[in-house]
């Protein structure tokens, strides 16, 4: 039960190995390079596969191949690299293959900046690539949560035959925190991969991995199957945390590093006798709409706080469904607010100032 002081990216890499990652294919990009660097040494030590690919495009296609052949496989990148991977991700989702993707988010759009941001929310939850599909996405706020989620991510990906993404902002990737690597995590019961094109099959036993269905009737049927899968995931996999919501007058909605800053703001406000709560999504998709079903009667307004200019706010609006007003506070480009900035924003809400 001992804790080790670790850097975020390193913890991510160790968690992947502990989670059973058999192959890693990736490409360097700031601010996540410690992940491929660590794995380039340690995957080999564990007798597993590591390839530095020639690009993110190549990386995600190597992931697709290895996943189709039945392996537990992972890649990591940052926002612009994830954008390059979108085609590959939709092929993986369309072919119903499992994989784990790590996105250490930075400012955009385009080349953007290398400082932390949360401006990939739309890219992560609104497809990113073509077609009707979803990526099961997590946004942990600290290293322990990150490690625990990654350790279970390979099971989740295998269980649903779907890509799973862990999105942390650059701060989490670079910061150092104590982590208990041996903490028990919930495992899933998994069957054999009797769909994998792993060789050894001919004739009617052949396995074919594809996302191509030229017959529109078959493609619609395939999409409906995917849709039913996503409905099950939405029902069973929402994860969130509520802090101090019971009698709150104002509720912040924030995830990742922004949520941590907001925690401090909530403490400051508490000292001043102002009762503010927080809903912290841990899954970005499926969005934890369950957290918004039963709202306290004391609640006056939501404040959505993001390290972007407003992407998650759309899902909050959908979940709240017009029952209460929603305001927004955001910083972007790598600029991080102080807890006092959030306090000030809440106080403005109280005053009725936009």
């Amino acid at each position, binding site marked *: 039960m001992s804790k080790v002081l670790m850097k975020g990216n390193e913890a991510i890499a160790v968690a992947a190995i502990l989670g059973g990652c*058999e*192959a890693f*294919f990736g490409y360097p990009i700031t601010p996540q390079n410690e992940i491929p660097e660590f794995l380039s040494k340690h995957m080999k030590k564990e007798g597993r*596969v590591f*390839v530095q*690919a*020639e*690009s993110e*495009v*190549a*990386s995600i*296609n*190597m*992931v*697709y*191949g*290895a*996943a*189709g*052949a*039945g*392996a537990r*496989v992972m890649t990591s990148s940052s926002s612009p690299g994830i954008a390059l991977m979108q*085609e*590959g991700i939709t*092929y993986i989702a369309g*072919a119903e293959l499992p994989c784990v993707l790590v996105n250490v988010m930075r400012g955009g759009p385009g080349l953007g900046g290398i400082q932390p941001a949360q401006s990939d929310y739309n890219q992560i939850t609104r497809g990113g690539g073509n077609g009707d599909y979803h990526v099961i996405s997590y946004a942990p706020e600290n290293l322990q949560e990150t490690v625990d989620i990654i350790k279970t991510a390979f099971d989740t990906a295998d269980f649903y035959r779907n890509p799973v993404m862990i999105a942390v902002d650059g701060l989490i990737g670079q910061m150092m925190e104590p982590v208990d690597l041996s903490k028990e995590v919930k495992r899933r019961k998994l069957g054999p991969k009797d769909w994998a*094109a*792993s*060789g*050894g*099959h*001919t*004739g009617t036993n*052949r*396995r*074919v*991995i*594809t*996302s*191509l269905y030229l017959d529109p009737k078959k493609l619609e049927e395939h999409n409906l199957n995917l849709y039913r899968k996503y409905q099950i995931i939405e029902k069973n996999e929402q994860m969130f945390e509520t802090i101090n919501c019971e009698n709150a007058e104002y509720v912040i909605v924030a995830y990742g590093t922004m949520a941590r800053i907001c925690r401090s703001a909530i403490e400051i406000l508490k000292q001043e006798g102002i009762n503010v709560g927080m809903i912290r999504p841990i899954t970005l998709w499926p969005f934890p709409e369950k957290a918004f079903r039963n709202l306290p009667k004391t609640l006056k307004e939501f404040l959505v706080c993001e390290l972007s200019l407003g992407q998650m706010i759309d899902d909050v609006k959908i979940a709240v469904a017009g029952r209460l007003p929603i305001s927004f506070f955001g910083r972007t480009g790598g600029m991080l607010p102080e807890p006092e900035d959030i306090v000030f924003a809440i106080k403005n809400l109280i005053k009725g100032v936009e």
Partner: protein
Amino acid sequence: MMENIVYQKSKGLTDNELSYCPGCTHGIIHKLVAETLEELGIIEKSIGIASVGCSVMSYFFFNCDMQQAAHGRGCAVATGIKRVREDNIVFTYQGDGDLASMGLNETIHAANRGENITVIFINNGIFGMTGGQMAPTTLLGAKTTTSPEGRDVKEHGFPIRVSEILAQVEGAAYIERVSVHNPQFLRKAKKSLLKAFQYQMDKKGFTFIEFLSTCPVNWGMTPIKSMEYVKDMMMNYYPVKVFKDVGENND
């Protein structure tokens, strides 16, 4: 009277009817690949990667496990598969749009890493599936739907000689360009395929066979005239020969 079989359909092909145009060399080359896998006893062990182009359906035709790759990405997909399935035989089957246009980067890098895979490159100098647009390997002067006045160096650049490029990559083990335009060349092409797959079995590294191929429909020629175009026109620009062979000296 006793009868011996001189030629019959290979077990390396499924029962599905080929979807290719009449006289298309895809059919001939599919047979050669299938026969090669059969003769080497590796049909069951094989995992093939279908690309995007006319042969997007090849996963219906090869009698082994298959994976469909995004356009151009076959060599990256093959890398992923071979790295986690070292004992399986992994091959890609890619056209010129797929390999020489979209996928040139992935192809060169897979060769550079010496990935132990076999790449079958179908070069017919045109984008067939999408209706006859210019390809990186379209010959100078050839009229296509996106080079209606004929391929021009100033506007379109020179046709790309992929085998020659890959032969310069250190990691490549065996690079050859072949043709199937008549039985003699076809038999030589089969020998080259056998060698390429044998090299993979012997873990010699990256093997690559470029097939000069036809596209009767988009070239606007009969299948027979198309074979003559390969012989008279394509072979002048794309010499049929071995470009690299690490042979027995590779360790």
